[in-house]
């Protein structure tokens, strides 16, 4: 172990940084599975439920050996998980209540045990509630780092070996079960790795920070990708970065809290700015969709009102347009189209320009193709059709498009500019009223 002298020579602050970074990345990885399985708060529960185990271990062993306390904490945590499972499965109590019950009663028992431990007369270092809550990152020993690295390597190994199995269980546990995978075992293994990472991290960073590190990097990573292996990498990355950044910017502040706040900042930035799932991106997309939809409604309506007179461009009365369907802000819409050069208007009339006619007939054709497609393939269409007026022609294979177009033409509904066959007058159903003044 030639690294050992190097490790021993590391300054404490470097050790702390290394340790918190390592812990953060491990938490990001196991946390990803927890978040995907809807178990974000189990990390919180584990962290709190470990307390009685720690207290008992201390009472029995009488000294603050990290190994002993960790074993106690792990036992207590696993017992808690077992209790939640039993309650949720065999009683009327629902899972969220079960987690809350176990979390608080175990913690209460832990507080009781600590109060015994802290009495004068009990030998050994007093494990104060403070250090349990907030950890003692400042006391990071080289030994602690070694243990952390060991656990980290083990977790990585498990995840790498069982990646596809974990992935399956996360996304469709029933399917996994039906395929014969031992889903219960896999689930327990996931929970166990969560427990181990949480327990190992507790003495270093404390309860609240541990609970946060399980959730924050994973939830942050989720905004940037839909692929599991990328999510794991990103979560590890965010967890890794939160440590050093937090301690650096939070000089003079409690280390644990600053690390959480660093993680939270990543989260907030991701919520707002992530390209597809971020809030701003979504708001923008909704706005654009709505705008496009109303624009299409207008052009299509104008086309349908003018259809019977084509190829002549009809001068339509504004009233007929207004009555054709339900509008929210017709005036504004008309202004926008005038600017785009698709319509001409005066105080009482509206008319498509040649450019407008071209655009409107393309839109109408796409819309009618889509309707025809739904008619033919109604049972499966809702899953396949992402209604994007211009894209329908890109979604469907050429042969199918031609077939649908032909059907439209047979019905006499293929829009003018696109048809090679002359139109015959037909009934548009509701609305072709006053198309000429």
């Amino acid at each position, binding site marked *: 172990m030639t690294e050992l002298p190097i490790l021993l020579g590391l300054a404490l602050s470097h050790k702390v940084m290394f340790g918190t970074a390592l812990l953060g990345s491990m938490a990001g990885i196991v946390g990803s599975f927890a*978040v995907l399985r*809807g178990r*974000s*708060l189990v*990390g*919180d529960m584990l962290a709190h439920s470990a307390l009685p185990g720690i207290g008992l271990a201390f009472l029995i062993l009488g000294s603050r050996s990290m190994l002993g306390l960790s074993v106690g904490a792990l036992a207590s945590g696993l017992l808690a998980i077992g209790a939640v499972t039993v309650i949720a499965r*065999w*009683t*009327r*109590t*629902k899972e*969220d*209540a079960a*987690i*809350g*019950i176990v*979390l*608080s*009663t175990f*913690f*209460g*028992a*832990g*507080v*009781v045990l*600590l*109060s*015994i431990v802290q*009495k004068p007369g009990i030998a050994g270092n007093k494990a*104060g*509630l*403070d250090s349990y*809550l*907030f950890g003692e990152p400042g006391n990071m020993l080289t030994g602690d780092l070694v243990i952390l690295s060991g656990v980290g390597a083990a977790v990585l190994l498990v995840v790498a070996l069982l990646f596809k199995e974990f992935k399956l269980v996360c996304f469709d546990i029933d399917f996994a079960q039906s395929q014969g995978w031992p889903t219960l075992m896999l689930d327990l293994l996931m929970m166990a790795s969560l427990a181990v990472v949480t327990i190992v991290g507790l003495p270093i960073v404390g309860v*609240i*920070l541990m*609970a*946060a590190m*399980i*959730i*924050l990097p*994973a*939830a942050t990573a*989720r*905004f940037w990708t839909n692929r599991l292996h990328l999510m794991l990498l990103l979560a590890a990355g965010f967890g890794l970065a939160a440590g050093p950044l937090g301690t650096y910017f*939070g000089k003079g*502040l*409690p280390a*644990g*809290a*600053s690390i*959480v*706040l660093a993680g*939270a900042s990543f*989260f907030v930035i991701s*919520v707002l700015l992530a390209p597809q*799932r*971020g*809030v701003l991106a*979504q708001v923008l997309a909704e706005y654009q969709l709505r705008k496009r939809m109303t624009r299409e409604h207008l052009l299509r309506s104008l086309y349908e009102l003018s259809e019977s007179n084509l190829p002549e461009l009809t001068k339509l009365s504004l009233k007929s347009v207004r009555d054709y369907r339900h509008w929210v802000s017709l005036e504004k819409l008309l202004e926008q189209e005038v600017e785009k050069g698709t319509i001409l208007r005066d105080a009482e009339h509206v008319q498509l320009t040649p450019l407008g006619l071209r655009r409107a007939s393309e839109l109408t054709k796409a819309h009618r193709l889509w309707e025809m497609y739904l008619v033919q393939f109604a049972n499966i269409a809702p899953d396949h059709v992402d209604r994007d007026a211009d894209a329908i022609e890109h979604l469907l294979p050429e042969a199918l498009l031609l077939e649908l177009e032909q059907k439209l033409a047979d019905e006499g509904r293929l829009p003018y500019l696109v048809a090679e066959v002359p139109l015959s007058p037909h009934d548009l159903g509701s609305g072709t009223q006053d198309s000429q003044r």
Partner: protein
Amino acid sequence: MQFFSDIVNPSAGTWIVLTGAATNVACAMVGCFLVLRRMSMMGDALSHAVLPGLVVAFLLSGSISIVPLFLGAAAVGLLTTFLTQTLHQYARVPSDASMGVVFTSMFAFGVVLVKKYVAGLHFDIACVYEGSLELVPFAEPIAGLPRPLFTTLLVLLANLVLLIFLWKELKLSSFDANLATTMGFSATALHYLLMTMVAVTTVASFEAVGSILVVAMLIVPAATAHLLCDRLSIMLALSAAVGIAASVLGYWAAIYWDTNIAGMMTVAVGMLYGLAVMFSPRYGICSTLVSNLQMSLRVFREDLLAMLYRVEELDASKPLTAAEARKALGSGWQSRWAMANLFRAGHIDRRGDQLQLTDRGRDDARRLVRSHRLWETYLVEHLGMPLDHVHEPAHRIEHFIDEKMLQELDAELKRKGQDPHGREIPE
């Protein structure tokens, strides 16, 4: 005598128990709705998230008096609820993750605020976590009551008023939020109101029992009551009772073993929950096991009776031996028990190794076989099931057909004499 002198001049212990009990009851009242709405973890979340609100209120008002504290709590309650909802609805973060993100961040923020602006003063975080019921009797008195008790009673009153005025609205929105909204009772507004009350209740309880134990008091008595009854009003009353019981028991145990009082109250309430899980007359694990066992034994007894009847029908001169019967039923303690039970009840006689039905036993057996054969007839005639498929379902269902259903079957099948296999249907 101690009791009466206690009323006039309460001892320290009485104050502590009263405070614990008041806290428990105040928490139980809003906690019941948290449990029923499956928002138990919001209790945990809120109890952590209020920390920055408290600090800000303290900084702004310069004191730790009640009003600014409650205002700070209410503000944080609203903010936390808003952030959690928004993250869940608009950013599509799963609801538990959004709770977790919001409350851990807010708590961390609170810790930073404490360290920077109020270090050393009243706000010792561990204290907030753990509470200090022991110090209650020595707190400054307001209106003759220790301060924590006073604030808790105030909140208890507020929660009570809330429940009285909005009982049906809370009940409806917890049961069927969509219907509530369509009736004009905005489920969202009620949700925010409830969460705000939880936040305020949490803060009032901090001084006494600390933040984690508040979570216990919010949820555990409510969950216990849920296991014991089927009406919402009873559930609320029971949860208050469980809370009070836990306070008293916890206090005694803590005094006896000289440990942390609030922690002991939590352990006590956890044990009460455990007892309910095991022994609740309707929903407990033990009662479920017992009734399953009873059912299974009944099936064994009846199977034995019916088997003896059929053997008799075929050839009365060759009765079944005990060993053969046990083998047919599947040897195990249950068949042994069934046989012994039938002897005792006077349904069968034992002559040497052979089993005979008594008159009483024959009557019961006849009824069973009648059910079985009527059901087989029904299956074949009305549902068109093939002959070789009807025995199994009839065998299973024969234990559960009551007299009324037998008569209906009879009328339906118009008094048939024979089952589809050609055997006689007994009267």
